[in-house]
């Protein structure tokens, strides 16, 4: 597996963090940054290059869930959460908030390596699906904007559907722009002029 990855370790209390830091280094981590749950994790992640987030808490809190939902939206990272809480709602909520691996009572340093490997594999698999989804959604919304612009031309310029499309295609070619850009511009102009 990949070694030389950088880890952000978030604990409730840094005094007990040393064994986990050592375990992460033995498991291939190049650098282990530490933070407490009081710190702004999102800010740390945006200022440092981090490949993996490891969370070591007695119980994940609402505040943490919120931070992780934001992290998944802006700079998705694999997240491993070690916790003592075996409540099924907490587990479900954590997974929903983007925790890749949730592990109860399993913090022995020699078991870290397979856990990290599995978390990274799963994360990559999930990211691939999310990326594809974003692309397909992008195409759908491109089509929607082209349809909308076409409709506006038909309504305001009295064109047929065919003429409207050909007009947009000609504008795109003449101006060297993508047809979706032209469609956006048409929608903006018509909205501004009423």
């Amino acid at each position, binding site marked *: 597996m990949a070694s030389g990855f950088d880890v952000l370790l978030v604990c409730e209390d840094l005094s007990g963090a040393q064994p986990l830091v050592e375990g992460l280094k033995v498991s291939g981590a190049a650098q282990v940054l530490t933070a407490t749950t009081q710190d702004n994790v999102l800010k740390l992640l945006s200022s440092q290059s981090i490949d993996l987030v490891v969370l070591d808490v007695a119980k994940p809190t609402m505040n943490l869930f919120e931070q992780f939902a934001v992290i998944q939206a802006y700079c998705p990272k694999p997240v491993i959460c070690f916790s003592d809480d075996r409540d099924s709602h907490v587990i479900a909520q954590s997974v929903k908030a983007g925790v890749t691996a*949730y592990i*109860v009572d399993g913090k022995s340093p020699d078991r870290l390596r397979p856990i990290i490997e599995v978390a990274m594999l799963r994360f990559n*698999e999930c990211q691939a699906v999310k990326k594809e*989804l974003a692309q397909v959604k992008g195409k759908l919304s491109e089509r929607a904007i082209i349809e909308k612009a076409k409709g506006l031309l038909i309504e305001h310029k009295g064109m047929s559907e065919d003429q409207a499309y050909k007009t947009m295609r000609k504008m795109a070619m003449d101006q060297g722009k993508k047809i979706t850009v032209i469609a956006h511009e048409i929608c903006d102009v018509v909205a501004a002029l009423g």
Partner: protein
Amino acid sequence: MNRLNVLLVDSDTARSALLSQALQDQGYKVIARVQPGANLLALIASYMPDLVVIDTDSPDRDMLESMSLLNQHNPMPVVMFADEDNDVVVREAIRSGVSGYVARNTDPKRVRSIMQVAIARFREYQALKNELYQTKNELEKGKVLQRAKSLLIKHKKVTEDEAHQAIQKMSMDQNKSVAEVAENIVSVLEMSL
């Protein structure tokens, strides 16, 4: 939480009796214990469990292929108990769609939370895949509609507007969705080409 129905797959009946007891103690209902083999997928389909638990020394190629097929055609959470140290096996198992992987010497008290995580993650991943499938479907429907329109324009010498109206009228008259009508038009007109 309702008791989840588990199908237990193990080639070693003595070992599976122990695991079966452990699972029942943790609140799962083991509906059947079966041997791995060529008919594994058929067995899973006939028992319709909420989750499949596999106990194996090391999953062989057939097993991984079965899991991969299950993941494509009848996705459900699968938790695998196997040897801890083999990185390659773990990786292959995850690739084949196994939602949870438990090392052999795991403390029984941890089993429940591992299974819960596997189920939660399975649901999340499945929801994501469903959304992708639906979005792709929508995109595809739009493409078929476009194709149907241009075929009408070419073969029936109508304008795009007229083609659009014709499809909508057919949809209403035949009481079918626009997508269905478009598909019919494409299959008929492309056949006669």
